[in-house]
C-alpha cells in the first residue's frame, strides 16, 4: 500500500495526543446510518508498475499516433516545443495552487501577469484574465459579461451561426435560466450573413458574437460586423484562434469589445479535448465585469514591484451570489504553458507557424479539391482548415480514412443536417507534404466508388 507516511509508533503518538485509542474513533461523528461498510467494487490496489502497464496498454488502444491528424473543429495538432513540457513541469509551478498568498507565489503570479499581457497584445485588447475553462465556456462568459455590463437591460444576444456549434450549445446551456434570448445569425457562403445581421440588429441587442477564423475555417472580416453591432449599441464579442493571430489582424483592431477563444494551440496537447483553456480579453472598461482571476502589478512598502490577484470583488469568494461568475479553479497550468509557448516562439516564430499552417492547408485544399467529385464547400479565404464537400456520406468516408491512418473531420452532418456530405479538414505546421499526398491518395480511392 503506498502513501504510508506514519510508522505505527507515530500513529500511536498522534492518537494519544488526540485522546482516542483507534483511528476508527475519529469517525464517531459519522452516524451509523451514514457509514459504508465493506469495500467499494473498484479496481486496485496495483503497484506503479502494474498501473503503468495497464495505462500504457489503454494508451496504445488509441490509434491517434498511427496516422496523420487532419482533424479540426477547435482542437489542433500543433507542435509543442520541449521548453513548454519541461518548464511547466517545474514542481514549484505545477504543485502550487491559486496564488492567494502573493509573497509565496510571485513566480506563478508573474507568469499570469505576463500571460495576460501576451493575450492582450495578441488580440489587440487592453486586458485579459488569467484563463477560463475552455473556448466554449469563454464565449458563454463573454456573452454574460456583455449582458451584465449593460445592466442586464438588453435581452437579445446574436450569435453568428458560423461559430462552433458546441460553443453555441454551451452558451445556450449557460444562459438557460437567464433572462436572455440567444438568436443565431444565419450564414451565407460560410460567413456571417451581413444582411441578416442588419435585419436582426436592434436596441435590445446586448451583443453580437462572431468568429474569425470561423468554424468553417474562414477568416471573416469583423469590421462590418462590429459596425453593425456598435451602430445599434451592442457590443462585439470576437472569437479568435491565437495561432492565427500570429499573422491575422487582431480583433481589437476591428472593433471587438471582448475577445474570447480556445487557447489549446498554444502549447497544449490535444489530449482528447482537455485540459485546454479559454482566454478572455477585453477593453479596459470591462475590468470589473469580466470573470476569472486577474493579476496586477503593484509594490510593497519598500517600493519593490510585485504581483497580486486583483479586482477580487468580482469573484465568488468575495461577492458570492453577486459575483461575475462562479469560476474558482481555472486552467492555470495550461495558461502557463501558453505563456512559455509564446515566449518560445516569439513574434517571428508565431507568424511563421501561422504562415506555415496556412500554406499547408492551402496545399491540402488544392490537392484534395482536385480529386474528382470533391470540392471546397465555401469560397471564403481560410486559415488552417476548410469544409470539404464529398461525393457521398462524410461519416462513412471519415471512418474509412481513419482506418487508413488519415484522420479527418469532424463530419458536418453532425450539426448541420444538410451538410451530411461535408467534413472539416485542417492542416497544421506539423503536416508534411507526404502526408498530404497520402491523404489525397486515400481520399481518391475511398471516394471512387461511392
Amino acid at each position: 500500500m503506498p502513501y504510508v507516511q506514519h510508522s505505527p509508533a507515530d500513529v500511536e503518538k498522534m492518537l494519544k495526543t488526540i485522546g482516542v485509542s483507534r483511528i476508527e474513533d475519529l469517525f464517531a461523528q459519522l452516524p451509523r446510518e451514514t457509514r459504508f461498510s465493506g469495500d467499494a467494487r473498484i479496481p486496485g490496489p496495483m503497484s506503479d508498475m502494474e498501473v503503468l502497464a495497464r495505462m500504457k496498454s489503454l494508451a496504445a488502444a488509441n490509434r491517434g499516433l498511427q496516422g496523420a491528424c487532419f482533424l479540426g473543429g477547435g482542437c489542433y495538432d500543433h507542435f509543442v516545443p520541449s521548453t513548454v513540457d519541461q518548464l511547466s513541469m517545474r514542481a514549484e509551478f505545477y504543485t502550487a495552487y491559486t496564488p492567494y498568498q502573493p509573497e509565496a507565489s510571485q513566480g506563478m503570479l508573474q507568469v499570469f501577469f505576463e500571460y495576460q499581457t501576451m493575450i492582450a497584445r495578441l488580440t489587440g485588447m487592453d486586458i485579459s484574465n488569467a484563463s477560463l475553462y475552455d473556448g466554449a465556456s469563454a464565449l458563454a462568459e463573454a456573452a454574460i459579461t456583455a449582458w451584465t455590463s449593460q445592466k442586464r437591460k438588453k435581452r437579445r444576444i446574436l450569435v453568428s451561426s458560423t461559430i462552433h456549434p458546441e460553443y453555441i450549445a454551451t452558451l445556450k446551456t449557460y444562459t438557460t435560466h437567464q433572462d436572455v434570448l440567444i438568436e443565431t445569425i444565419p450564414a451565407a457562403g460560410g460567413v456571417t450573413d451581413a444582411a441578416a445581421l442588419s435585419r436582426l440588429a436592434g436596441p435590445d441587442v446586448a451583443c453580437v458574437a462572431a468568429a474569425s477564423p470561423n468554424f468553417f475555417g474562414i477568416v471573416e472580416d469583423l469590421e462590418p460586423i462590429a459596425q453593425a453591432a456598435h451602430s445599434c449599441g451592442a457590443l462585439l464579442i470576437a472569437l479568435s484562434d491565437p495561432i492565427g493571430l500570429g499573422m491575422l489582424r487582431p480583433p481589437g483592431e476591428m472593433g471587438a469589445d471582448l475577445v474570447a477563444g480556445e487557447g489549446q494551440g498554444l502549447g497544449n496537447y490535444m489530449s482528447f479535448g482537455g485540459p485546454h483553456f479559454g482566454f478572455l480579453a477585453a477593453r479596459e472598461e470591462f475590468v470589473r465585469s469580466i470573470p476569472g482571476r486577474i493579476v496586477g502589478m503593484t509594490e510593497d512598502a519598500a517600493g519593490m514591484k510585485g504581483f497580486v490577484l486583483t479586482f477580487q470583488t468580482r469573484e465568488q469568494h468575495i461577492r458570492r451570489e453577486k459575483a461575475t461568475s462562479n469560476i474558482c479553479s481555472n486552467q492555470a497550468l495550461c495558461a502557463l504553458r501558453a505563456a512559455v509557448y509564446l515566449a518560445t516562439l516569439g513574434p517571428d516564430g508565431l507568424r511563421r507557424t501561422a504562415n506555415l499552417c496556412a500554406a499547408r492547408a492551402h496545399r491540402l485544399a488544392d490537392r484534395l479539391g482536385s480529386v474528382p467529385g470533391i470540392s471546397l464547400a465555401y469560397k471564403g479565404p481560410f486559415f488552417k482548415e476548410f469544409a470539404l464537400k464529398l461525393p457521398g456520406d462524410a461519416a462513412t468516408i471519415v471512418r474509412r480514412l481513419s482506418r487508413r491512418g488519415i484522420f479527418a473531420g469532424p463530419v458536418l452532418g453532425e450539426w448541420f443536417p444538410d451538410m451530411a456530405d461535408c467534413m472539416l479538414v485542417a492542416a497544421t505546421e506539423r503536416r508534411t507534404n507526404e502526408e498530404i499526398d497520402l491523404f489525397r491518395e486515400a481520399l481518391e480511392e475511398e471516394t471512387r466508388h461511392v
Partner: protein
Amino acid sequence: MEQPKTIFEKDKPGRRCFDVPEARGPRIEDMIPAKLMRTGDADLPRLSEPEVARHYTRLSRKNFGVDSHFYPLGSCTMKYNPKVNETVAALEGFTGLHPYIHAECAQGVLEVIYDLERVLGEIAGFDAVTLQPAAGAHGEFTGLLIIKAFLDDAGEDRDVVLIPDSAHGTNPASCTLAGFTTRGIKSDERGLVDLKDLEANLDGKVAAIMLTNPNTLGLFEENVVRIAAMMHENGSLLYMDGANMNAILGLARPGDFGVDVMHFNLHKTFSTPHGGGGPGSGPVGVKARLAPFLPMPRVLKDGKSFKIAARADKSIGRVRSFFGNVGVMLKAYTYIQRLGPKGLRRVAENAVLNANYVMESLKEHYDLPYGKRCMHECVFSAKSLARKHGIRALDVAKRLIDLGFHPPTIYFPLIVEEALMIEPTETENLETMDEFVSAMRTIAEEASKSPEKLHAAPATTPVGRLDEVKAVKEPCLAFPSGGRIT
C-alpha cells in the same frame, strides 16, 4: 534585492528561440486579403531559448508548491500527488489524440472515461456520473442545471436554493448562474446546519439545499440523513458539494445517505497537482432519476466497444466543448487504481487523523470556535490574538511564510472571525506537522512578545506585503507596450 524583470523587459530585436521551417507555395497575400492580416508582427517578447529557460526556472524558484513546502491550504486538499500520475497523463497515446477522431481509434480513452464514471459512482454511491465539468464550480453549475431540468420536467416550479452560511463562495455564485435565487441557512452553535432555520426556510419554491459535507468547518453534518428526509419530504433535492470527499472516502457514500446530486473535486480528492490554480475537474454524480438530464456527450458501451452519444432528449445540453479535462481524469483513474478500495479508505483515515492531530496540538494556542473533533481540516480563529495583540490571521499567515510554510486558508469560512483553516492532508508526516505546530506556537508567542515581527512579515520573500489597494486604484494588468514600468 533587485526589482523583478518581466519577460517584456528582456526583449531585444533579433533574438530568436525557435525555428520554423519556411512556408513554401503560394504567398500568404494571395490566400488572405490584406485587410484581414496584421500589419506587423505580434508584440511578443523576443528571447533566445536560454533566456526563456532561465526566466521560467528562476520564476519557479520564487514559488511555493507542495513538492517544496508544506501547504495546508484549507478546503484545497493540497495533498502530494504521485509522480506516476504525470507519467500516465503524458503518454503520447493520450496526449496526441484529437477529440473528434473516430471512436474506433479512441477505444482506450473511451474506456477510461466509461470506467472512471462507474468507479466514481461506486465510490460515492451514485447511479450515473458525468466527467464533463472542468472544475468544482463548473460541476456545481452542472448539477444545479440538472436539478432544475429535473424539476421542470416534473412540472415543478422551484427556483430557490438553500445555502448554509458556511458554504464556499462558488455555491451561491453557481446558483445565480443557474438562475436560482438563494436563501442563507444559519449554522448552529456546533457549526452544523441549523435544522430549525432549515425547517423555517422550506417551502414550495425550494428546489434544493447545497450541503457541503464534511462542511467547511471540517465537521461532518451529522444530521444529513434527517436533512435529506426533510428535503425530500418537501419535494426538494439534496445537492452535496463533494469538495471534501477526501475525509470520507471508503467510509461513507453520499449517494447512500440521501444525496441526490454531488460534484467531486477530482483534482483535490483524486490527486491532480493543482497547477497554480488549475486545471481541475468537477464530475457530477446523480441518482438514477436524474440521470436522463446529464450533459452531453456520453460515452456508451456497445458490446465490447465504446461509442459516443452526442444527444439525448432530456439532457441539459453541453457545458463545454469535447469531453472534459481528460488529462485530469487519467491522473484520477491512475490514482484510484493504485490505491484500491482499502487504500482510499486509508487516505480518509489519515487525512482525518492528521487534521485532528494538528487541531489538538494547537487548540491551547488559538481559538477553536467549533467542535472537539474534526474531519479532514480544522478551523481556528485568531480573534483573541487580534483583540489582545492586534495580530490578525493575515499576520499569522505572513509569518508562517518566513518560517518555511505555506499559510492555511484565511478568512474563510466567513462565519469564523479571523479564520485560519488548516488542512494538512493525509500525505504529510508527523515530523512536518510537528514543525508546523511548533511554528504556529512560536507565532502565538511572538504575538505578545514581538508583534512587530509579525507585522513586518514576510521578510524572507522576494517581496514584502504588497499594496492591494494600489493594485486596484492604479491598475496595471498588462505590461505597457514598449514601456518599462517605473
